[in-house]
């Protein structure tokens, strides 16, 4: 007699809805005529995100393990899934932009070939990017909820594989974009092999793949078992790669620069939330009992990541690379929240993820607007004088940069303050000092861009800011408002996170 597994569809609804719509989107790609695809795909994607968000709201008071213990839905999951879906929506708005084209008309056509010319001339845009995005969002939703090594691994791959492809879809500078895809893929697969080998040894240690099983084995015998150490360290490598923490950060600048900017924006916000969500669940909940073992490692990684991110960013000449190194530095700041290992550290990390995601999506959205005849202009020298040419966009970009630097009255300050004070509270003064110093260095290169935009004369080289279409304008608007509101009235959000953010017990 075989008993069917019990699946709680309600609790899993956000993930299931998004993945089901992703599968539907693949069918749309196959059966709907090319002229109608864009409309059908965008409506399907936005419907998926909206329905998923609704399902997350309905799960607000749920706390438990579902699908035979494979998925944990609790306050932390709800907050993270909600955040991911909001960022996915903003990312999709950027991806759906058709006023100027970011994506190649036909990914399989050779750069410069007659095929490509024909695809461009036909004026039809490929829409494969929508199902790919939905799959990535589905993986991202499952990643922080996974309560089992198998689910965690599958979610990691469902999140990553579409992103490898999406990184190579840029319309301009296709060789660069394809190269970014290759690098991301090879390094990502390399790190997931480490992740998998680590999972094998964790399973070898505990005899089970569920998180609560591993937790109870660790509680019963808190020794320094070799299997446990090997397993944990390699699993950590895989996770740190995803959040681009040093020394596993080397893919970040290349991929951020080469990928189409809307994809970079999506990836920067969504992947970071999902991966930090998984790190929170594993290190706060599952192996929280071993905090004295893993904390020193995270202190070192955090300080190293902040240092690498901020110092190398100073030497960059490309705005997307500056933002990539800034993303690395922000991973370092976020890791101080993991080091803190207390309730305020948990709340602060969730808050920081929310504030950082809005800001980074906004910055990349602005980058898509600065263009010349050949596409986006990312060379920083050519951004000089932008403030005189288009004060509004330059002003909004300045707001985002100030938020990334952590200046008061922006969301960045609230996030940084919360996360550093949580780390301070836990007695880890070294990361706090490093964090404050790194913030000071980081402020230098953010302010440098502001100076460049306002105090240098514009160059007559065809660089201009295009008038954003409603979708991009909406994205930039929402991000700017969120950056300001979270900076001036953060209390409702802080209270919500504070009351919701608990892990399922046991």
């Amino acid at each position, binding site marked *: 007699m075989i008993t069917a597994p019990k699946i709680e569809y309600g609790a899993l609804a956000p993930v299931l809805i998004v993945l089901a719509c992703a599968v539907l989107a693949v069918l749309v790609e196959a059966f709907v005529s090319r002229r109608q695809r864009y409309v059908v795909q965008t409506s399907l994607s936005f419907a998926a995100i909206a329905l998923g968000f609704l399902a997350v709201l309905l799960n607000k008071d749920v706390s438990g393990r579902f699908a035979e213990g494979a998925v944990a839905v609790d306050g932390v999951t709800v907050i993270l899934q909600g955040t991911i879906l909001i960022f996915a929506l903003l990312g999709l708005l950027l991806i759906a932009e058709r006023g100027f084209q970011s994506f190649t008309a036909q990914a399989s056509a050779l750069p410069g070939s007659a095929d490509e010319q024909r695809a461009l001339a036909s004026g039809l845009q490929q829409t494969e990017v929508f199902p790919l995005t939905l799959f990535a969002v589905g993986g991202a939703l499952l990643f922080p909820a996974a309560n089992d090594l198998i689910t965690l691994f599958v979610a990691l791959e469902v999140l990553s594989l579409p992103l490898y492809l999406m990184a190579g879809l840029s319309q301009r500078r296709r060789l660069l974009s394809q190269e970014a895809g290759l690098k991301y893929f090879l390094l990502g697969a390399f790190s997931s092999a480490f992740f998998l080998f680590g999972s094998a040894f964790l399973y070898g240690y505990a005899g089970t793949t569920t998180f609560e099983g591993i937790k109870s084995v660790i509680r019963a015998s808190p020794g320094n078992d070799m299997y446990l150490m090997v397993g944990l360290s390699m699993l950590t490598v895989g996770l740190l790669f995803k959040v681009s923490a040093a020394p596993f950060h080397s893919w970040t600048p*290349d991929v951020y620069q*080469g990928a189409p900017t809307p994809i970079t924006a999506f990836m920067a916000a969504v992947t970071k939330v999902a991966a930090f969500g998984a790190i929170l669940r594993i290190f706060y909940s599952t192996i929280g009992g071993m905090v004295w073992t893993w904390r020193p490692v995270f202190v070192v990684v955090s300080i190293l990541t902040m240092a690498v991110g901020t110092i190398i960013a100073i030497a960059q000449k490309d705005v997307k690379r500056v933002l990539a190194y800034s993303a690395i530095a922000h991973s370092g700041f976020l890791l101080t929240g993991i080091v803190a290992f207390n309730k305020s550290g948990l709340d602060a990390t969730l808050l920081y993820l929310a504030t950082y995601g809005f800001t980074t999506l906004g910055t990349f959205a602005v980058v898509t607007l600065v263009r010349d005849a050949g596409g986006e202009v990312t060379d920083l020298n050519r951004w000089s004088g932008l403030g005189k040419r288009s004060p509004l966009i330059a002003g909004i970009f300045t707001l985002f940069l100030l938020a990334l630097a952590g200046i008061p009255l922006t969301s960045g300050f609230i996030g940084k303050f919360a996360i550093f004070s949580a780390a301070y509270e836990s007695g880890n003064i070294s990361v706090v000092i490093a964090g404050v110093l790194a913030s000071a260095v980081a402020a230098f290169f953010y302010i440098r861009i502001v100076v460049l935009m306002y105090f240098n004369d514009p160059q007559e080289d065809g660089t201009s800011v295009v008038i954003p279409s409603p979708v991009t304008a909406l994205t930039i608007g929402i991000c700017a408002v969120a950056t300001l509101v979270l900076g001036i009235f953060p209390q409702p959000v802080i209270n919500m996170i504070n009351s919701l953010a608990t892990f399922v017990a046991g």
Partner: protein
Amino acid sequence: MSLDNYLYLSALLFTIGAAGVLIRRNAIVVFMCIELMLNASNLAFVTFSRMHGNIDGQLFAFFTMVVAACEVVVGLAIIVTIYRSRRSASVDDARLLKL
């Protein structure tokens, strides 16, 4: 024969794979080395499954195979596209992106 030997073999295969990724220059060979690492993990899973006397590890090995197959699809698509545009699959030639 002690089951430990399988773990030694698995660790050896994993190391060969990792060394190959770092040393070899052809994207296809690098990718094969990654597959070797995944399969080394599979061997470890199956061995641990035998040690513990439950089938969780075998289950995991099946999931790994499925994921590895998906990775091949995505990976070869990317590598073939790169090869067609540059007539080279060397990872050293992919150096447009740098500081």
